[in-house]
């Protein structure tokens, strides 16, 4: 919001704790935190803080006597809030607090430590949940704003993974990544716990290549990284071939699939087969 034409004045949107944004215009491009608080009617001034809201949703405190430049930082949105209370809320099952009445989606994500492919939803009693964008600002003081829920983003993996697999993996706490490379879709089950004492390592990443036509077509074989050897030091049977995928060299476990029920079986079945194969591995 740069000043237009020969109008020398500098506009800024200032919100109070109720998140009502009002436009204020300053003659000077540099204003003090104190001036912003006064403009929003924050009283007494020293119990309030002015916070610049950056375009990505990040917050930046402006101290009372700090001069803030309204030109060209893309931060012409300012929030004025009291500093004398803490606000409690939950993200999933984690109890958290925040020293301001308002919080942005970006800051919430940071507090929740969410992986990039997760979205945050606000639970609104009696209504459907609301998805929170980074730049959203939420008023923690409003009635019923207490709980946020994280949910894996359907669009990231959703491009390639059938819905029942998404549900299965998330419900069963798998960490996974879908990688498309050279037209091939692969899913990596991360840090899968291996049968105790059986191999040279305790966990491994397992890659499953999903063929075109999956889940009507069965995946064939699976791949491990790092290469697994039995505790005896020997390579398991039919595991000597290799595959390069997603920048890694994988050990191919040539285990075949003869009892696939097209369209009914999925990663649920595949995960069970992988576990069995690892359990039964012999030299």
């Amino acid at each position, binding site marked *: 919001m740069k000043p237009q034409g020969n109008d020398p004045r500098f506009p800024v949107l200032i919100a109070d704790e109720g998140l009502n944004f009002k436009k204020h215009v300053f003659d000077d491009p540099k204003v003090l935190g104190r001036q912003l608080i006064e403009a929003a009617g924050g009283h007494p001034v020293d119990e309030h803080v002015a916070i610049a809201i950056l375009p990505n949703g990040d917050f930046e405190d402006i101290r009372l006597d700090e001069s803030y430049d309204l030109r060209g930082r893309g931060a012409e949105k300012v929030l004025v809030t009291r500093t004398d209370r803490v606000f409690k809320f939950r993200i999933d099952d984690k109890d958290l607090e925040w020293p301001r009445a308002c919080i942005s989606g970006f800051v919430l994500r940071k507090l929740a430590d969410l992986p990039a492919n997760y979205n945050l939803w606000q639970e609104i009693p009696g209504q459907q949940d609301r998805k929170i964008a980074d730049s959203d600002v939420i008023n923690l003081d409003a009635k019923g704003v207490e709980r946020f829920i994280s949910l894996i983003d359907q669009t990231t993996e959703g491009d390639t993974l059938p*819905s029942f697999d998404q549900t299965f993996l998330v419900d069963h706490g798998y960490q996974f990544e879908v990688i498309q490379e050279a*037209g091939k879709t692969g899913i990596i089950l991360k840090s899968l716990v291996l049968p105790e004492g059986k191999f040279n390592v305790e966990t491994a990443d397992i890659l499953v290549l999903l063929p*075109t*036509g999956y889940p009507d*077509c*069965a995946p064939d074989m699976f791949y491990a990284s790092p290469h697994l050897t039995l505790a005896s030091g020997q390579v398991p049977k039919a595991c000597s*071939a290799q595959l390069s995928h997603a920048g890694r060299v994988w050990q191919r476990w*040539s285990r075949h699939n003869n009892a696939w029920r097209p369209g*009914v079986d999925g990663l649920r079945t595949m995960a069970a087969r992988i576990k069995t194969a690892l359990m039964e591995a012999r030299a």
Partner: protein
Amino acid sequence: MKGMLDVILAGPQEADIRSLLTQGAGAERSAYMLFGQAAIENDPWTEKARTRLISHRFLNLDDTDVVSTSERHVTWQTDSFMRLLGRATSEGLVPAIVHTHPKGRARFSKQDDRNEAELARTALIKGAPGLISVLIAGDGEIAVRIWRTADKPTDITRILHTGPRLAITAKDGSDLDFLDRQTRLFGAQANAMITRFRCGIAGGGATGSAVLPQLMRLGVRQTVMFERDRAEDTNLNRLHGARLEDVVADRLKTDIHARTVSEAGLGMFLVTIDAWAGDPSTWDALKSCDVIFCCTDDHAGRLFLNRFARFYGIAVIDVGLAMQRRDDQSFDLFARVTTLVPRHPCLLCGGFINPQRAREEALRRNDPRAYQKLKDEAYVLGEGDPSPAVVTFTTEAGCMAVNEWLTGITGFAGPMTQTRIRRFHARDERFPKISSRPRCPSCDAAETLGRGDITPFLDMVT
């Protein structure tokens, strides 16, 4: 929701809509529905965007929701409407209300206008892309409209009815002189429907080249064909329209068929797409069809269309041939036609697709090196020798497929059969009994029927 709109009513949901007339016992009755959407960016014939709405679920009202009803009105509690909207918006579906006019015509009343405008306003606020309204009159006529703003609804005048019987309700339609003898048999109404069908042909080989000229002479106006192979000399024994010079010129099969259509001058508009049916570049064109003839001998394409028919409520008529010489004296010569429409078991349940072959074919196309590697290690079935093919059998298989479609429209042999197998060597025809596997996504699971566009496409790896 862009461009022209049309509606696909799948048999099971249309039966539910009709059941409201009897349920009401002479009084008006209402219910809800959910529709899937098929967004078409580029219609192959008009090159414009359009949208199809496909019946997905029918949801009857609880009796306790009905406040009062007579032959002229029905009043019901709308709490359930909010639940419908919640479900529609969370699943990306379009909500719909259905009601009957047991004594009246299929025309929306002033009362309907007022009532629906109010419901549409709420639906739009909740984030639904619109509110569909379906009206059925005592004489069985169905009218459909959609509210995309709360001010004014848009009438949807083209309805494709799919199931073992096929029909198109529409205002347009051409009277073609050259079809006079055909009209004498089927009558003007069925004949008009034949000319309105937009037909897809997956595969322009032996059977596809037999299906195409038949559709043209039946009066079909709009056809799209998917094929990427070129003519080879071993095709000449069965590829209708092909000339020796086409082989010399290494011509695309689609170019040969385009020539056949243009030389006939019967007014068919054929669009050819140089890709396998199932390739992302074919999705828009496939979604634009009213029926698709699956004339390919590959399992990967068949596997794709098997799901496609279910998700988009578009009839797929699949043709397969199996021929071999058993010994010096005897032959096995089979032609199979299977119709993929709601309530018919799918090709996987019938065992007519080999998923392992489908996987290998896809791998061979997408990653020939990896395919070769696995083949060297003997992990794939491989192609083996080319299968035998004779023009009389491949052509007859094409005729069987087209006739199955014609009986779907005209009823000349009753509804379409699920699967028929002609045994040329035994001079008979078999109708094997096939059952859907419970929860099969391609023929049994309720959540896949008419689901339309979702991510990933067809809920599968493509």
